[in-house]
């Protein structure tokens, strides 16, 4: 049954997430720099630093620290930020919706642009429109999104002055009335995803329209419109779904750069600051959160598969 499949997949996520925590934890453990010194300042006496390190549990052996963190995670206690001393959970609750909103909008944008363009490009194979779309697709795959963000800022905020240079910094929310704040970040983060989805849709459509069952549909006297939307699209979207799911993960990662450029108070910028401050609980928490989100999205994609493809649906039964 489907429940069983979902449950099994959720259980399979546990070792992977444990691995993510282990990797991140080890990296932080060997990182240079001392959080206690960071908090106390350069003038702190060695005794004070050692005392604070002991209080923070940094003097314990690796395995103890790791075990303590895992034990905390199980009870949803992700520790307090070294810098603000606020619980990680509270800090992330402010920021995660922002990042999710940004990544979600970017995915929607990339699907809305990528899928139709991919279909048109495939349908008009060998035409100038196809050549142009293919070229632009490859171009936007190649432009690093942080540079795209800077160029957009240069054009629309600096030269033309029509859009603001800041995203959701303090006071600017994700409400629709603030659309002019989030239009540039969304394009920045979504452009390459749109290009990747367009390329995937195109090649997938080209593959599908050469299939025998499309010829069967044409032999029935079916119209080109219905051949595309009834017979081809559903089959072509199966691989596109995978890519869209993977893109969501890349978008979450890309948020680190985009949020930095647009000063958006989201998870990515939070993570970046935490890394520079050696704020281990925050780095760990964000890594875990992003890996968890990514795994859940992949699971959703697999479930979506079953809706699209009856062959996979019958495997789950």
């Amino acid at each position, binding site marked *: 049954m489907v429940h069983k499949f979902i449950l099994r997949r959720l259980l399979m996520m546990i070792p992977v997430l444990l691995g993510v925590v282990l*990797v991140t934890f080890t990296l932080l453990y060997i990182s240079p720099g001392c959080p206690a010194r960071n908090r106390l300042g350069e003038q702190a006496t060695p005794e004070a630093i050692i005392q604070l390190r002991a209080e923070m549990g940094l003097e314990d052996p690796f395995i103890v620290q790791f075990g303590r963190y895992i034990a905390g995670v199980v009870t949803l206690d992700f520790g307090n930020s070294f810098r603000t001393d606020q619980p990680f959970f509270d800090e992330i609750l402010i920021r995660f919706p922002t990042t999710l909103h940004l990544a979600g909008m970017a995915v929607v944008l990339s699907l809305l642009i990528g899928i139709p363009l991919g279909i048109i490009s495939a349908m008009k194979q060998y035409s100038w429109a196809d050549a142009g779309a293919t070229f632009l697709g490859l171009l936007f795959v190649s432009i690093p999104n942080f540079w795209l963000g*800077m160029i957009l800022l*240069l054009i629309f905020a600096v*030269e033309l002055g029509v859009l603001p240079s800041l995203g959701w910094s303090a006071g600017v929310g994700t409400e629709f009335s603030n659309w002019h704040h989030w239009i540039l970040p969304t394009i920045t983060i979504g452009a390459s995803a749109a290009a990747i989805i367009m390329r995937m849709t195109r090649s997938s459509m080209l593959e599908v329209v*050469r299939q025998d069952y499309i010829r069967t549909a044409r032999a029935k006297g079916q119209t080109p419109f219905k051949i595309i939307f009834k017979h081809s699209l559903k089959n072509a979207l199966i691989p596109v779904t995978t890519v869209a799911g993977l893109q969501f993960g890349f978008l979450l*990662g890309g948020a680190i*750069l985009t949020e930095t450029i647009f000063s958006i108070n989201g998870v990515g910028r939070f993570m970046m600051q935490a890394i520079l401050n050696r704020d281990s609980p925050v780095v760990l928490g964000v890594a875990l959160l992003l890996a968890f989100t990514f795994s859940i999205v992949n699971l959703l994609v697999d479930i979506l598969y079953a809706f699209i493809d009856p062959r996979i649906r019958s495997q789950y039964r």
Partner: protein
Amino acid sequence: MTNVNPQKQMSKEAMAPEKFAGTKRLDRFMEVWRRFRRNPLAVAGLVMILLMGVLAISADWIAPGTEFDPGYDIQNLPARLVRPGDTFNTGFLDDYGNPIYESVGIFGTDHLGRDMLGRIAHGSRITLLVAFLVVTISMTLGVTLGAIAGFYGGVSDNIIMRVIDVILAMPTILLAITIAAALDPGLHTIIIAVGVGAIPGYARITRAQVLTLRDQEFVEAARSVGANDFRLIRKHILPNCMAPIIVEATMGLAGAIASAAALSFLGIGLAPPTPEWGAMLADGRRFMLAGEWHMTVFPGVAIAMIIFSLNMMGDGLRDAFDPRLRSAGFSKKRFKRQLQAIEAKKAGAKEV
């Protein structure tokens, strides 16, 4: 899992085992090259990459330096933030007492008066070096792990693939940032940070290929004449799964360049005054809102251009390795000529 299965993208033809090495392999290489050459985008990519190589070689000629003053760090403070085409006041007066103005390099100068063109030229060396090393190392590790996992299966396969799942569960850039932050800054750190995230791609491709190849007759035949596992993998299996690995490596060069630039942009890559393109963008960002567009535009164009070239080349290689994907290229010219001939005949028939 949910990754796109590389096998699906390569047709049987591309995976067809070469049972006779040597001349046949050369023939096949020529065949691939012939198809590659016919693809204008791919050739354009290759040419642009070669030009980038020329730029890297001629960096010392474009911006010569000394032992203590490397070519990329020659500061000229009066010439700070000069945009391309503008001149700057040298502070000197000519014989008539008028200030002397001088022009700067075609890309302008940065906030320390350093020539942007010279820095970009020197930066191309770092970019190409990092990309090459990242791909070489991650490809070696990934292919080895994938081959072991695919060839032996069982426990080793399980362990390797679970580790790979862990790496894949973290967004690449996040992994790179965490690694870069944990190690001392430097070239080796960037290479490790970027390289680790690239291993899973090679491992998965190789594993999938090895799985399909290991039970084929020619491998069995080699085994029956006493080839050991290492020789079997190295001589008989890996040469037959090179096509998708080469494509992945080409795209991997592009990915490595993008990731390395992102790390430097975030300030956890190479330390200043290294002319890493991403680090130059980080400088550019500081002066961007003041309208100093040239510091942002040129390094970015350089990054985008080389990534674009590599991707064009990668696409071209994939098509060249697997002609079926291109659906037997269609000749527009002859098709149109025929169409015109038919229409002309029809028109002629009507007149009569």
